């Protein structure tokens, strides 16, 4: 399409000309009536006209004066740049405005281009808008900082790292240096201090927190005292980070509120010569402190809980079993997936004092999980150990154990199986008693798997219990397996929801005939684990009691009854 003569195809040329003419006429005649300051300068950068408002605003602006002298640099530069573009084919093209300050006020300068190449700069005061924008930007920065702080602080459940992050963030964004103080542990104060831009330093000192004004109160969770009440000169030396630049100009002490109990205090330090903490900054510091305190408190609680679990775990982990008094013992324990939970399965071996005394094996499963289960497990194991000398009568022993565990406030129970084990010649004699526990299985040398028909009541919940002891004998190479229902009730398989079950266990065991106990334990654990796959499972505990394979050595000296190689 051919453009219409004398203008762009989209704009009526006559109209544009009329508008420019109108504005040009307005200036010399009515310019003083215009409220906006207007400065007109020509192509060479010389001021041509200045209206009254502009003259009042810009003292040096007068016709004939160079723009560089008449107006601030930002406007002079904009004029020079606009002048360079005068050769542009379409003078009517919209020009972008520029912004800058004149004295204390902010202005937006909108250029209007005239045909002779001169430009009129209309100055619009936008100070208020600018202030509002600045306030908004500050708020945005603060919100971003708080969001970032939350991310950083909550990323770790390690109290030490949490203190470092708090000190580092506070030093970088709120002050020149920051000190995080934890509530005193005995007489010692644990401090983590950071100077902006440097790595936090951790110190433990013996000091009185009340030496710092407001710190004692903050550590107890009382509201902070206003920063202007604290005399920086009164700060004790131990409070100042070593590499703090120069003197302290102002101090703010803010409590770090935790979950219910104070998590510590945050001390912000600013160097002398820097602005003091304003009220809005102190409020903002408190917002930050609330986040830091919550994170610190959570980290500390987690650490405590973890320490408790560790302690319990150390004490509750089943012992390593090995050959004792001529009998092979092997044990395997696989705790339920959740790491921080102490399991409810346990086993122990209480060896007889001599080869002639029988050893006692106990394997059990405590109802529930977590701390309650752990406490009950500990109680049972200790009681059984104390009762071990009475192992000659399993039922009596279980009744005493039941009495010791019985409490009126819950019915948490345990099921367990007791095995008294005695090597006789090359055989192993077993007395087995189940107290509400899955019956032990014996793997014979010919591959048959025998379920020992011992029966009994679970312990810890009922006033009266009963139990029936069954005796059996293991030939060399034969194994008796004690297990918890975590094995048989493991859910998995091809469809993911079938139980491993006793039948599968029995079949697996029949393939283990003649294997050493450790191999049987490993095989059962492996099969159950494969069955479960990645799925959830309960604790699984397995103990194998095996009569070692032996070779009879005929009497060497003709008097003794002979020996076995193992």
């Amino acid at each position, binding site marked *: 399409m051919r453009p219409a003569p004398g203008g762009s195809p989209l704009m009526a040329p006559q109209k544009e000309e009329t508008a420019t003419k109108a504005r040009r006429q307005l200036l010399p005649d009515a310019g003083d009536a215009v409220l906006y300051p207007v400065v007109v300068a020509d192509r060479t950068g010389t001021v041509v006209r200045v209206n009254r408002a502009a003259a009042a605003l810009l003292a040096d602006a007068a016709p004939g004066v160079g723009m560089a002298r008449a107006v601030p640099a930002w406007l002079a530069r904009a004029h020079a740049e606009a002048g360079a573009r005068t050769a542009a084919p379409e003078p009517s093209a919209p020009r972008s405005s520029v912004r800058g300050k004149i004295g204390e006020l902010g202005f937006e300068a909108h250029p209007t281009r005239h045909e002779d190449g001169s430009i009129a700069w209309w100055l619009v005061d936008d100070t208020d808008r600018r202030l509002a924008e600045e306030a908004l930007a500050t708020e945005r920065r603060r919100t971003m900082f708080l969001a970032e702080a939350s991310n950083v602080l909550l990323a770790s459940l390690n109290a030490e790292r949490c203190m470092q992050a708090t000190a580092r963030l506070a030093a970088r964004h709120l002050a020149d240096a920051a000190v995080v103080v934890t509530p005193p542990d005995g007489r010692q104060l644990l401090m983590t201090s950071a100077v902006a831009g440097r790595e936090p330093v951790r110190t433990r000192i013996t000091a009185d927190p009340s030496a710092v004004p407001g710190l004692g109160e903050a550590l107890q969770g009382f509201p902070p005292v206003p920063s202007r009440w604290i005399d920086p000169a009164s700060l004790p030396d131990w409070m100042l980070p070593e590499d703090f630049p120069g003197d302290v100009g102002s101090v703010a002490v803010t409590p770090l509120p935790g979950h219910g109990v104070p998590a510590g205090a945050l001390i912000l330090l600013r160097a002398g010569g820097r602005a003091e903490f304003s009220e809005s900054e102190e409020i903002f510091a408190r917002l930050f402190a609330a986040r830091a305190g919550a994170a610190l408190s959570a980290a500390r609680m987690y650490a405590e809980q973890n320490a408790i679990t560790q302690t319990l775990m150390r004490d509750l982990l089943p012992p390593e079993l090995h050959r004792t008094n001529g009998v092979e013992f092997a044990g395997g324990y696989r705790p339920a997936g959740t790491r921080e939970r102490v399991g409810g399965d346990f086993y122990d071996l209480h060896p007889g004092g001599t080869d002639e005394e029988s050893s006692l094996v106990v394997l059990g499963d405590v109802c*529930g999980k977590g701390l309650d289960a752990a406490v009950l497990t500990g109680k049972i194991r200790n009681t059984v150990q104390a009762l071990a000398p009475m192992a000659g009568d399993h039922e009596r022993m279980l009744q005493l154990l039941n009495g010791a565990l019985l409490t009126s406030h819950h019915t948490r129970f345990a*099921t367990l199986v007791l095995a008294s084990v005695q090597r006789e010649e090359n055989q192993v004699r077993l007395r087995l008693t189940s107290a509400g526990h899955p019956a032990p299985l014996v793997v014979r040398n010919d591959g048959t798997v025998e379920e020992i028909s011992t029966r*009994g009541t679970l312990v810890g*919940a*009922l006033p009266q219990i009963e139990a029936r002891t069954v005796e059996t004998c293991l030939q060399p190479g034969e194994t008796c397996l004690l297990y918890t229902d975590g094995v048989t009730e493991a859910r998995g398989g091809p469809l993911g929801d079938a139980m491993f079950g006793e039948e599968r266990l029995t079949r697996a065991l029949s393939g283990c005939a003649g294997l050493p106990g450790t191999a049987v334990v490993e095989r059962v654990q492996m099969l159950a684990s494969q069955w479960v796959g990645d799925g959830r499972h309960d604790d699984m505990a397995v103990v194998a009691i095996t009569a070692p394979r032996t070779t009879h050595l005929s009497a060497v000296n003709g008097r003794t009854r002979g020996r076995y190689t193992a």
Partner: protein
Amino acid sequence: MTALPLPPFTVTAEDGPGTARLRLTGDLDYDTSGELARAAEECLAADPRLADLHLDCAQLRLCDSMGVATLLLIHRGTTARGVRLHVESPPPFLTRILDVTGIGHLFALGAHGQESAQDRTDDGATPG
């Protein structure tokens, strides 16, 4: 059968004269057993002349050790008040659990409707 997303566990109460019935469906385990204990406690508290408490287990899918502990807790409560506790229509797995743990004799294992008491091998334990 299509596996419908069933609620993990529900207890529904039905009252009759001198008798209460709780219908259990789903999984009775560590997370849900508290609900059953509360429901049973409410039944016992609601009617001082209650003679029989029935737990209808026909729709029960799973019962773990906490579930067993809860049954024992309810048994303790009913015994103290002279109420008979009936575990009705126990699915095979429940019969097995009660059998292995040696506590089956505590619950008047009632057949509900056509289903008879499972092939329970009584070990001769007498009610305690």
